[in-house]
């Protein structure tokens, strides 16, 4: 069990995942449909996510086994394999989406003509490496990255806060409650970070105050994201949808800093790099789900899992013709239903299954 995450690593992992996945393109995408109410869409989604995260923490505390071992014991192998396939497909889509966002950030901010196949190849190497490592390897990396992520968030906030006009939040509920609920549902794909916590089950060393630390981490990341989103809306107002890379764009507000210091480059480099690690984490989740499905049939199941994952990833990228706009349309119009079922209904079902789980057996590591 030495390859388990510490509670600190798990908390850090949660923080980085939530912050980096929400502060890239999402504020712009949501504000396109909800304008100044975008922050309310975030708030609603976060409230739901937080409640679900409490359920996940309950499962982490209660279950000692790996998620799929636990499910296998409770509902049988066939159903568990089906669940693993469903989860892995969701993570393949999440990976594709973050690769897309990462590409947009590099393409817009690094200001070079990027070769898409080469970019994907570089990401693929990264995925293969991170996806086939243990969760604690990613956890250790995040323990280092959290400092630069925290620093760049603070830097963006300092640069942009002065330009934020809180009046831009008014009027509240500009497009009504229905719009907020609809957009929260449409963009549920970007939320549901508690799903990562399913992979913490049996993979986190149980320490004192585990529950408290994980809750604190979740709440802190929500607070940070909400603050930046509010600043983003207050700063850009009507032009917010045009600013596709939230955290990077708010760091470019001060013309003097742009001309003399270019502090924004710190943020410009950190977030794309962090998002690559995020892709690595999602690929870990997908690969380990696939691995569970094939481990009884294939000897070198890890390598095959990685190859299957890469195949699906390449298929998704080719299917959407390397175009983020097509993919975005698919995500909000079709994938949101699938995502809702897996993220919320399936997670809740797993919680229900875990309620009466009493036997704490030493589980095998998948």
């Amino acid at each position, binding site marked *: 069990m030495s390859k388990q995450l510490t509670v600190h690593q798990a908390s850090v992992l949660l923080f980085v995942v939530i912050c980096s996945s929400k502060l890239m393109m999402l504020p712009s995408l949501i504000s396109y449909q909800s304008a100044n109410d975008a922050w309310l869409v975030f708030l609603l989604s976060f409230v739901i996510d937080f409640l679900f995260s409490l359920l996940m923490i309950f499962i982490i505390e209660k279950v000692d086994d790996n998620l799929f071992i636990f499910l296998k014991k409770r509902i049988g192998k066939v159903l568990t394999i089906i669940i693993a396939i469903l989860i892995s497909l969701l993570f393949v889509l999440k990976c594709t989406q973050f690769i897309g966002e990462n590409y947009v950030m590099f393409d*817009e901010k690094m*200001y*070079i003509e990027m070769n898409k196949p*080469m970019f994907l*190849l*570089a990401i693929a*190497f990264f995925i*293969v*490496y991170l996806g086939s490592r243990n969760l604690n390897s990613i956890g250790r990396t995040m323990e280092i990255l959290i400092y630069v992520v925290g620093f760049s968030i603070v830097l963006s906030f300092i640069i942009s806060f002065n330009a934020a006009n809180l*009046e831009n939040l*008014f*009027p509240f509920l500009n497009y009504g409650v229905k719009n907020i609920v609809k957009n929260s549902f449409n963009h549920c794909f970007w939320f549901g970070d508690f799903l990562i916590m399913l992979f913490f089950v049996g993979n986190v060393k149980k320490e004192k105050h585990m529950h408290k630390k994980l809750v604190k981490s979740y709440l802190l990341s929500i607070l940070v994201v909400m603050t930046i989103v509010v600043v983003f809306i207050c700063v*850009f*107002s*009507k*032009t917010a949808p*045009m*600013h596709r890379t939230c955290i990077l*764009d708010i760091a*470019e*507000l*001060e*013309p*003097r800093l*742009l*001309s003399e210091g270019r502090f924004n480059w710190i943020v410009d480099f950190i977030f794309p790099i962090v998002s690559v690690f995020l892709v690595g984490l999602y690929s870990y989740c997908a690969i380990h789900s696939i691995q569970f499905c094939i481990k009884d049939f294939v000897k070198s199941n890890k390598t095959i899992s990685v190859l299957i994952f890469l195949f699906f990833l390449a298929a998704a990228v080719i299917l959407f013709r390397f175009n983020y706009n097509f993919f975005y349309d698919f995500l909000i119009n079709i994938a949101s239903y699938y995502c809702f079922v897996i993220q919320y209904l399936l997670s809740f079902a797993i919680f229900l299954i875990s309620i009466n789980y009493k036997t704490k057996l030493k589980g095998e590591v998948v």
Partner: protein
Amino acid sequence: MTKKILKSKIMIVILIILSIFVPLTINNVKQTDKRTVAIAVGIDKEDDNYLISTQIIVPEASSTFNGNIRVYSARGENILDAIENLSVHMGKVAGFSNVSAIVFGKDMAKEGIAKTLDFFLRSKRLNDNATLITTNKKAYDLLQSVAKIDNSFSYSINALARLNQESSLGATATIESFLNDYYSGTNASLVGQIRQVQDDEEGISANNSMQSSADGSTTANASVQSEQDKNNVVSNSGYTSLFVNGKEEIVITPDQMKGFNVFLGISKRGVITLKGISDELYKNADVAVSIKNKIITEQLGYKNGIPRITYNINYTVQVEQIRQNGVNQIILDGSKDYVTKAVKEKLITEIKRYAADSINLSKQYNADVFKAQEAFYKYTKKEWNNYLSKLTDKSQAYQNIEFFLNLKISGTF
């Protein structure tokens, strides 16, 4: 050693990455050979063509301080076409991400700039903080003139524009603020104007002998004939373009801008000269009063369904100069309160006059630069919608808004 390396998966991955990406990387041409760094852009309209001009930093040793700045320009049927032609002229791709000033020539401003800015912002060709400037002649000529004066045009322009607004003269706008106004429904913006005038007028001469050897600015592009005269002076005196629906409607004079800036919170300083003050302290005196601070609050309300906005403004002022009976009175110590009742009354009258003129002017052009409609929508959405529903022509909503001004003057030493 080789065996050890080949046994390690991570080493194999690293070797594969290196063997693919290193040859690609070392064969890449360095970016500075392919791209230029523009610090200011000028856009002019000439008949059916657009003329794009850029001030480019040339990173090389120069004997003069402004020898590193060159102005290039190119024409095209549309903005993108002109940018592409500009790249062809320069032999490099025009990189605009460091641009911090965009100058629009007279004809371009009249035709409208919103779509051009929208294009720049959406295509991510510019950063959105570039200061917008109009000029009374061609933008190309202004870039040429300024390149002779200063090699950091963008910094100077930003500084000038911002100071103007703070001191109640002129206004400043960035791409971001302009487009926010444009999309807000009020559709009106104020953009500072840098004028090109003759050398007998105020301003900075563009013909300084120290900069006469600025070869880059004069030889960079032979394809454009400069209209500027040798004694061209760049003048930033507070003239401001009023844009409605993205098009320049009128150029506001510095005096008129004083009125507009009464209502705009950012302007906190300024000088007002009061003539013919007579009381116990003054005898038919001209008193120069400087505004030291201004605190402004707004109250929104409706009377008989008609929206009314009341501005409560507290000015802190100081008497700086007194001219009495043709003689300058220079002793201004702290023993007397020079901001007398007569000064306050006269000041209130003057400010109200400026303010009324600006309101009338803004209504004449249906230019809600004070964002009154937006404020009513934000804070009194229901009443505002009721008001709009009663109007036959909603575009005239601004015309009926009633403005009230409560002024309070406090003196300081």
